[in-house]
């Protein structure tokens, strides 16, 4: 079953064609393959990064709006409208006349036109206009609030670049770029659709996880080089926390790879489709561990201890301002976005439409349903995961560092090993590789040998849900003792072994 939007193939053919034509004009026509490869990869990288970077605006906008709604607010409502109407009736005047060669005239005309269509309505009612200027009234296509982050980003570019006097200048400058470059590299390995990815090596999962671990180094660099107590503490906390959560996350991913039999992300996704069930229903525990560990990896509430606002001002990025901070801020959200994509790919079947077999068999609607490009499904799934991230942020307080570490080492790690065992057992004894199918409906490899369609995912999910409900039911409030006393009367480092 294929996707009609075969961007990789199109780009491949197009660039080969282009390079052949070009190289035939030169004395080295035999080299066209390499030139074509170069062109192809450049275009693909541009497309992938452009697509993901632009949709990051959606992520930021979603977070603001969701948080705003949960908090009984509106969230940002900045729109582009103020570009032409000015602020509360104050404009910069006919600034386009300063543009040389008369190039400003079309701009002036455009501004005039926009003012007519979506400008201040009534000069007799300046208050109404002033209220309108803040918002979008009547002009829905301006996407109120969507451009707030664009404004933020552009503002960061114009801010002064400051380096603290006592900072270690080289490392201070390098750290944000270390963070953002490693983040961008991850994005290059994420396939957006069956036939739309920048690069797809055989061990892409391993590579991605390895690159995910580079950013903590940048965080630690940033914290240390700023020469500030808050950033240093933030950096150390970050390093400890990321190390603690990397391991359960890796083991959870290992479970996915074992059950899919591949370290390649595309093959993991294809396996989920062909075997007939998303990994979410086979490894619910793994999905939960992966989600929790990912929240910790991207340092969001409730695991945002490294940048805990209450005690560490802004954590490890306290001393960064201007564009460096903007970069780190963007990197933070890119990591979050990458985490959403990874979750969608590992556990939610990537670009495959949900219930493609059932809905696809409806006469007219089904055909149209199957024609929806995979890239849209990928995005939708990633955004749905991001909604969970934003929801967590609104609902939960922050955990203390020692509690974070304890939770990571003492709860997540054993659980992740348990789910690894489950994955091995499922793959070895339950999986039926003969029933893999590459049709719209997918295969039925998880019938457990009884011919009952999807019996294994249903049983696993049911058992897990029951266990989860049992676990999460509160005991009687009176019976629960308070947690152990966290006060340390002896400072750290003074303990002796064996006491």
């Amino acid at each position, binding site marked *: 079953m294929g996707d009609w939007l075969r961007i990789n193939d199109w780009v491949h053919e197009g660039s080969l064609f282009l390079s052949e034509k070009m190289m035939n004009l030169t004395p080295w026509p035999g080299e066209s393959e390499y030139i074509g490869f170069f062109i192809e990869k450049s275009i693909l990288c541009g497309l992938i990064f452009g697509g993901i970077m632009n949709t990051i605006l959606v992520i930021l906008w979603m977070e*603001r709006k969701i948080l*705003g709604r949960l*908090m*009984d*607010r*509106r*969230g*940002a*409502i*900045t729109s582009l409208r*103020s*570009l032409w109407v*000015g*602020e*509360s009736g*104050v*404009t*910069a005047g006919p*600034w*386009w006349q*300063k*543009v*040389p*060669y008369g*190039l*400003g005239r079309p*701009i002036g005309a455009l501004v005039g036109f926009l003012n007519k269509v979506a400008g201040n309505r009534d000069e007799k009612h300046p208050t109404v206009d*002033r209220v309108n200027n*803040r*918002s979008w009234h009547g002009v829905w296509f301006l996407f109120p609030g969507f*451009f*707030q982050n*664009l*404004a*933020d*980003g*552009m*503002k960061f*570019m*114009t*801010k*002064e*670049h*400051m380096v603290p006097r006592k900072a*270690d*200048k*080289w490392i201070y400058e390098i750290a944000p770029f270390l963070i953002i470059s490693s983040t961008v590299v991850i994005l290059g390995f994420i396939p957006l659709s069956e036939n739309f990815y920048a690069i797809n090596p055989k061990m892409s999962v391993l590579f991605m996880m390895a690159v995910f671990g580079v950013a903590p180094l940048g965080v630690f660099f940033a914290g240390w080089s700023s020469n500030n107590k808050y950033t240093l503490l933030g950096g150390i906390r970050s390093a400890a926390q990321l190390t603690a959560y990397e391991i359960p996350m890796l083991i959870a991913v290992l479970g996915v790879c074992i059950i899919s039999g591949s370290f390649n992300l595309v093959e993991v996704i294809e396996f989920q489709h062909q075997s007939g069930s998303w990994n979410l229903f086979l490894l619910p525990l793994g999905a939960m561990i992966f989600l929790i560990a990912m929240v910790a990896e991207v340092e969001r509430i409730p695991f945002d201890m490294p940048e805990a*606002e209450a005690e560490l*001002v*802004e954590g490890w*990025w*306290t*001393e*960064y*301002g*201007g564009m460096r*901070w903007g970069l780190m801020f963007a990197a933070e959200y890119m990591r979050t976005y990458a985490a959403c994509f990874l979750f969608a790919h590992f556990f939610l079947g990537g670009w495959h439409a949900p219930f493609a077999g059932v809905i696809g068999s409806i006469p007219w609607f089904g055909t149209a349903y199957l024609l929806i490009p995979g890239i849209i499904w990928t995005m939708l799934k990633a955004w749905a995961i991001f909604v969970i991230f934003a929801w967590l942020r609104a609902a939960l307080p922050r955990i203390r560092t020692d509690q974070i570490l304890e939770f990571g080492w003492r709860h997540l790690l054993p659980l992740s090993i348990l789910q690894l065992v489950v994955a091995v057992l499922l793959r070895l004894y339950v999986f039926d590789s003969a029933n893999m199918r590459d049709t719209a409906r997918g295969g039925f490899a998880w019938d457990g040998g009884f011919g009952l369609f999807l019996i294994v995912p249903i049983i696993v999910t049911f058992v897990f849900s029951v266990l989860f409900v049992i676990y999460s039911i509160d005991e009687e409030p009176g019976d629960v003792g308070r947690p152990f006393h966290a006060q340390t009367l002896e400072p750290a480092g003074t303990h002796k072994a064996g006491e």
Partner: protein
Amino acid sequence: MMEGGENYTVFNSRTLVDMVGDVTDEALKATKLKQLIGTLGGRFFNWAQRKSLFPLHLGIKCCALEMAAAGGPRFDAERFGVIFRSSPRQCDVMLVNGPISKKFADPIVRLWEQMPEPKWCIAMGECAISGGPYFQSYNILEGVDTVIPVDVYIPGCPPRPEALIDGFGKLREKIIRIGAVPSQERPNDAPIIIGED
């Protein structure tokens, strides 16, 4: 090697960069491209700057609660891109919302100097404008403008959150009028007072 500001001399590339920069600058000037880019981009950057004003999360006294209320559901300053940050390095606006005592005069100047340009200062409330009810006190400065330059004054004791939001509106007007220039180069003649026009 790490002292002063001479770190780029290690590879002696500073002169090269400067030279290339100068040549490019001349070329751009000759073709008026600089003016073109400057005017076009300037408007966009001006828009970005005035739409995203991050005030410093600095609560001094009573007005701090009105500042908090302005961030709350009823007034919701976040609608207009006013998002409070805790670190002065990441802020554009210093919102002084209380009396400046002698003990606090030094820290607030340091905070102001830690903020990157372009930056603005809003004096919120009587205490920050003139000392307010405490103007006779032995320990209070007569307004924050004795130590840092103020762009917008919001009178009231304390001003209502709407007034604060309007103050940010006035600051936007100021930015659109005189541009997002650093605080030293700003004309110092006409600070904006809410309620005058």
